[in-house]
């Protein structure tokens, strides 16, 4: 089956860890992960500046590694990201900010990518709260 995940919870929350565990499980069960769409506080997964405490599972880094190994599409809602200070080089220049912080492997995109994910997936699972 084709899955997409819609993640609204921030990386420090238990819900986000569950989302990652679900993603790992669906991939190991042989399903396809079409897109992971990060929205609301979920956009914080795309920050290159997070510094989790030692001994705690690094969810951001784990998504980055999973993106590389499985060629995942990690889409980040651009409006939600800008509001929360997650910028790529283009937006950094446009808004005349001092530095970009979008983690490689993540892409800023519009809500059209969520619409597309709903349209092209057999299952859309939302992780929020």
């Amino acid at each position, binding site marked *: 089956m084709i899955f997409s995940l819609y993640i*609204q919870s921030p990386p420090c929350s238990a819900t986000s860890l569950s989302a990652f565990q679900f993603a790992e499980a669906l991939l190991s069960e042989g399903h396809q992960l079409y897109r992971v769409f990060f929205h609301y506080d979920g956009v914080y997964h795309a920050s290159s500046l997070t510094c989790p405490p030692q001994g705690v599972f690094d969810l951001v880094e784990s998504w980055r590694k999973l993106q590389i190994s499985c060629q995942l599409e990690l889409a980040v809602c651009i409006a939600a990201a800008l509001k929360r200070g997650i910028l790529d080089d283009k937006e950094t220049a446009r808004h005349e900010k001092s530095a970009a912080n979008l983690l490689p492997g993540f892409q800023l995109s519009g809500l059209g990518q*969520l619409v597309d994910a*709903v349209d092209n997936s057999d299952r859309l699972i939302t992780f929020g709260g």
Partner: protein
Amino acid sequence: MAADINILPGMTGADAKKANTLGIVLRQSPYGASLAQEALEVVLAFGVYGVKVNLVFMDDGVFQIVRGQDTQQCYRKNLAKQMAGLDLYDIDQVFVCQASLSQRKLTIDQLILRAQALDAEELSGLLHSQDQLLCF
């Protein structure tokens, strides 16, 4: 009469293979956090792309469409005013949970949108017949 039934494109009394109805349930209060505003942006995105949206307000979400919201002193975008423009995006199937209204001592005429009040059975039936569901 043809306009009376909400027959989806491709439905002629048999199934549409991909009818693309999307039920969106809004349960959040309007200004406590920004989820209600960002959920509205999702609703509008689906409307722009021509997805047939059935919008449901329940729980504290019914507060999103209460008439008379005044954001002047709080520097926030007026959510109710944005909601009032939903039909411009062809989002005109709006439903509200009757029990959620009653619990909050609200009536349908206090709402800024023309919404159909549904009881629990009708609400459940509506959501169980959608092709996809999103809940905020």
